[in-house]
């Protein structure tokens, strides 16, 4: 009787320890994603500034901006659709925390990560339209228009599955351990995903039409104070996660240093493109992405089945 009681207590303690470890793992990963994502955004601004012969802000500027918004007054436009206007920022944060759990913490299904990205598009759309501002509204219409650019996203999924036979990140990493990096076997899928990352770059991306400077801050224009702070935290985590997915899916499981080096390299490359290209108009942006997707899909199928 006493032994079974001790066994039950040990099992309970072990379960508590496992849950505590999981919680700590999630918290650490979310914190790391936020800090690294923010610094990478700062690095992006710095590189763009140096290319344009400006000194540029410090690398931690994006991080400082994020913290600054938390001590600013939070005001709500009287035209806003309540409570959607507020809840949308919470949803944005929640989905990217979920992405960290599905990605680095549990190495779950890639389909879920892409579903999270699809919901991110919805949040972009609704954060813009819920304020009643014409800038937000135009950003919302462009978010819907740019949904055509999600074709590469879904095509990438199919191509990865055709090549590896799985959607689970842990299995994709194992596949690459024994067969080499997917970057070399399906390079056009990697190109399509890179274009997707480019379209989500925060500063001066030629393809990011929802955040074009003609729309002030796009869908974020009418979110102030703490709400904007939460949006910036989410975007930092989103940037980290997009780079993490790219590195994990196309190069394989790396060490933490490997991930940081890879993220800095990709951010540098994207900053170079951002600094040297104009922001395209919505039609050109969407058609560029659709054209690249078409080349990527047809080329990848030829690579997989005929070469």
């Amino acid at each position: 009787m006493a032994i079974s009681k001790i066994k039950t207590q040990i099992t309970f303690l072990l379960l508590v320890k496992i849950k505590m470890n999981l919680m700590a793992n999630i918290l650490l990963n979310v914190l790391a994603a936020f800090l690294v994502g923010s610094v990478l955004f700062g690095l992006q601004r710095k590189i763009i500034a140096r290319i344009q012969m400006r000194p540029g802000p410090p690398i931690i500027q994006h991080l400082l901006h994020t913290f600054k918004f938390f001590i600013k007054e939070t005001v709500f436009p009287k035209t806003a659709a309540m409570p959607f206007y507020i809840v949308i920022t919470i949803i944005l944060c929640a989905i990217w925390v979920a992405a960290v759990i599905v990605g680095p913490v549990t190495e779950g299904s890639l389909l879920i990560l892409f579903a999270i990205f699809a919901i991110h598009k919805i949040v972009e759309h609704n954060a813009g339209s819920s304020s009643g501002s014409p800038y937000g509204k135009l950003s919302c219409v462009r978010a819907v228009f740019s949904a055509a650019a999600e074709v590469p996203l879904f095509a990438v999924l199919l191509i990865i599955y055709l090549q590896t036979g799985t959607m689970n990140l842990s299995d994709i990493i194992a596949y690459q351990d024994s067969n080499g990096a997917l970057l070399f076997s399906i390079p056009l899928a990697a190109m399509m995903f890179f274009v997707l990352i480019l379209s989500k770059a925060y500063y001066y991306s030629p393809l990011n039409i929802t955040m074009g400077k003609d729309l002030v801050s796009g869908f974020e224009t009418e979110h102030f104070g703490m709400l904007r702070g939460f949006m910036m935290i989410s975007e930092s985590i989103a940037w980290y996660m997009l780079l993490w997915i790219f590195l994990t899916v196309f190069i394989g499981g790396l060490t933490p240093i490997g991930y940081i080096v890879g993220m800095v390299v990709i951010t540098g490359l994207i900053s170079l493109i951002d600094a040297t290209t104009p922001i395209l108009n919505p039609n050109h942006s969407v058609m560029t992405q659709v054209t690249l997707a078409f080349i990527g899909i047809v080329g990848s199928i030829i690579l997989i089945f005929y070469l």
Partner: protein
Amino acid sequence: MDFTTLGGQFLGTIPLGDIVLYFTTFNLFMFVSALVFTAIIAMSKTESQIEADFGTLKDKEKKVSKAEFKIRRFLAIICGLATAGAMITGDVFDYTLFVALIGIVNIGIVAAVKEIDVLEAAFQYGIIAMIASLPLFAGAAFILASSGTISLLEIINIPTTTMMFFGSILLFIGVAGETGVAPFFATKAELFRTAGSPFLVIIHLSSLLIIVRTIEILLIINKPF
């Protein structure tokens, strides 16, 4: 091949006669997301859209009238529930019905608006959705005729045939037309110019979630390995 290679951990099924709902981590996440958005839409007010007025320095404020608000909210909730249902159904025909319902209510959500440009876009989207219903249901019919079942839990164990592949192509064309994704996206973007943000979001949400779910279904039907 099994469900875990696509959607993560298999959590269980809910049999409703012939129709079996199933849950993997992926399906559950999408189902909950659709329900959360539907719940928020049900309790949200609409925004007042501010536009510049031509000829003066004043602003023009566009509001949603109470009668319009009621019908659009009702249709948005139906659309949200249909999307949630489509995320967990294990039956291809059931799935096509949900997609067709989403297409119909999407038109309804904007058809209640009294703006000529928006109504014209809704009309064009409606024509595409109606035309797309043929390949949508034909796709499901081809899959049934060639595999003998429309249950995804059964289809996953049946080797893919050419006719199943052909049915999948029809199904995909149907879904693309009903949800207004590329290449049918241009008219859909025009729908979003009207006021009523919480209701418009469900149109976009349903499209993207349906497309992600369609990829899962197509990979279940067409097993490349």
